[in-house]
């Protein structure tokens, strides 16, 4: 008897917590179907339901809502960002994990400290550096911003590679394989989970960043934007009363693919972050 009560209590607590965690998400979801464009402050659920907000996103592009373009822009930026970032991260991780050369540890400490430096602090300098190369207001510039410094984020990936047994590469070395060959033929295939993690996590960066995007894509022309700036813009002072529910619809739409990727990624994330240390 006491056991059943306990069990019911336990699940009630969990239910309560889950409700707390999901209420804002639910609000996002239901508001995206609201017939009222502003913020409804007296009712949780919309008074009139409609699909119009989604229709506005996809089919009624104007100078403020260009959702399809934003989506494509962000997708292109994200694809290139994740390709370049992943390559850079793998290069550095492998070097730090498997190769031995003088100054390695110093270089590692230095990189880790450098990686702690938040980009926000130096974004004006980054802006003007890219401006001298005429890369502001261009998607190439955005890709560079998101991926060029990626090499510094090698720690998790290196931790994973540390767990790959050295005997495999030793054997290959004895057979006369070059370091390059070992890298491509042995380490890369064995690092699949961490590569998936790196790919997805760098893919997600452009979808969530609005600070750099807003600074770099400053032409004011909506077709140049990424999803994040577009949505952020809808909550501006003069816009929010007319665009809040459209913002919610836009939020729901990007959340779907991102949630799926995130759910895939989290498995590898846990493996990556705990892999090295746990198995030890």
């Amino acid at each position, binding site marked *: 008897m006491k056991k059943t009560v306990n069990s019911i209590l336990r699940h009630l607590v969990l239910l309560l917590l889950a409700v707390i965690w999901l209420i804002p998400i639910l609000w996002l979801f239901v508001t995206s179907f609201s017939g009222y464009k502003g913020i409804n402050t007296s009712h949780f659920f919309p008074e009139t339901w409609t699909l119009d907000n989604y229709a506005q996103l996809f089919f009624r592009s104007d*100078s*403020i809502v260009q959702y399809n373009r934003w989506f494509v822009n962000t997708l292109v930026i994200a694809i290139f960002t994740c390709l370049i970032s992943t390559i850079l991260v793998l290069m550095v991780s492998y070097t730090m994990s498997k190769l031995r050369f003088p100054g390695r540890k110093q270089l590692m400490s230095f990189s880790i400290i450098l990686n702690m430096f938040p980009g926000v602090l130096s974004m*004006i300098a980054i802006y003007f550096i890219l401006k001298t190369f005429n890369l*502001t207001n261009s998607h190439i510039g955005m890709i560079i911003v998101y991926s060029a410094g990626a090499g510094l984020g090698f720690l998790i990936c290196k931790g994973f590679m540390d767990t790959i047994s050295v005997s495999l590469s030793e054997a290959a070395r004895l057979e006369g394989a070059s370091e390059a060959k070992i890298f491509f033929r042995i380490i890369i295939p064995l690092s699949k989970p961490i590569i998936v993690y790196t790919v997805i996590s760098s893919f997600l960066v452009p979808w969530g960043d609005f600070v750099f995007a807003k600074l770099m894509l400053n032409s*004011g*022309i909506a077709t140049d934007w990424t999803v994040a700036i577009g949505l952020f813009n809808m909550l501006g*002072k*003069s816009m*929010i009363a007319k665009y809040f529910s459209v913002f919610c619809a836009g939020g729901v739409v990007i959340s779907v693919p991102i949630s799926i990727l995130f759910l895939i990624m989290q498995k590898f994330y846990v493996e990556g972050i705990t892999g090295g240390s746990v198995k030890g």
Partner: protein
Amino acid sequence: MKKKVLATLLATALAASCLAGCGGSGDAAQTPAADAPAAETPAADAPAADAPEAEAPAAEAPAADAAADPIANLIAATTDTVTLKVWASEEDQDLTTKLLDEFKAAYPDVTFDITLGAESESTAKDTILTDVEAAADVFAFADDQINELVKAGALQEVVANYTYDVANDNVSGAVEAATIDGKLYAYPMTADNGYFMFYDSSVFSESDVQSLEKMVEVAQAANKKIAMDISNGWYIYAFFQGAGLDLKLNDDGLTNTCTWNAAGGTDVAQAILDLTASNVLVDMGDEDMATQIAEGNVVACVNGTWRAETAAEAWGDNYAATKLPTFKAGGKDCQMSSYSGYKLIGVNPHSANIGWAMLLAEYLTSEAAQTARFEARGLGPANVAAASSPAVQANPAIAALAAQAAYATPQRVGGNFWSPAETLGQILASGNPDGTDLQELLDTTVEGITAPVE
């Protein structure tokens, strides 16, 4: 009229060429001067409808040759595609697109590549100042930013007019707002960016809205709210200026003089405390006001024409607007003051096609454009002729602004004003929770407002 334009044009031309002479001869010329063959074609090319004055020189001035017809020269000198970037607010996109098409059609011999971006007038400064060179060639902004924009070299001085007389065709307040140190820096676009009182006439009578105390009383009886963005320097100014205290920009164009802590200052602070104490007059931001008006909780608010639509929708036939009321400070009634606000169009001095940018700015602020803007969006024109049309006069929000105009002052204030004033408003609106001595409170605020700028 025409003569006057010509005179200004020539005078400024002389002044400018003198300036150019003093400016040093080593300057790198950006664009070639009008070449000789251009001289024969101008009259035919100049679009008659848009440039009546442009024809004038040829007819009136005997010495005038092609050099005196700048538009024709410009058309002749333009061989490449003219690329221009324009910024207008999000709400203004449709209208601006239409005006841009008309502008292009007015100059059929020139190939234009004009892109239109969305940049709110109220935040244009933030984007422009980060990188002036990357900003649009022609942009709209609110007049409170003109000081900083001029300081940052982001505004081309309007040394000459080509299609209409900017200084005389617009209301004097607007021209004053676009002028810094006697030099005109922008083209007035609307004259409605100030604030006044919106109210629901089913709750307040016309005599109620004369006094803020009375309004609070009535609203309290109806269990409704009156909203004002008190924690905002722009609005809290209404109280202090209304009580005769001073806030102005010093001659250096950076620092402020402020006497809010002088005798009578504490009376104003006390008045704000008293008015907000009953929680009927509430401190509320513009976005919240929009929802609260729609929800029916707010029945009167201090705001500007940009909220007229929301209020008209919510209150229907009872929608009304008037000048700001009086409030009691130290036992006497003071009429609340306000900032008169204007929206202006500026030209970026870094523009590669500065001549065309100026012509476009003139086009976007012409009488026809201002009338169109009123018809499309209910924005009060700055153009005298456009503003005198019966339709404009009948608009309640614009009429209220006109009534408030007698008590409004143009906005000239240095950057150090905003943060301290905002905080003063926040403290007063939340009932001075720490119980700071009011004189001390004002002293600290004034210290912040008048702080030196290195």
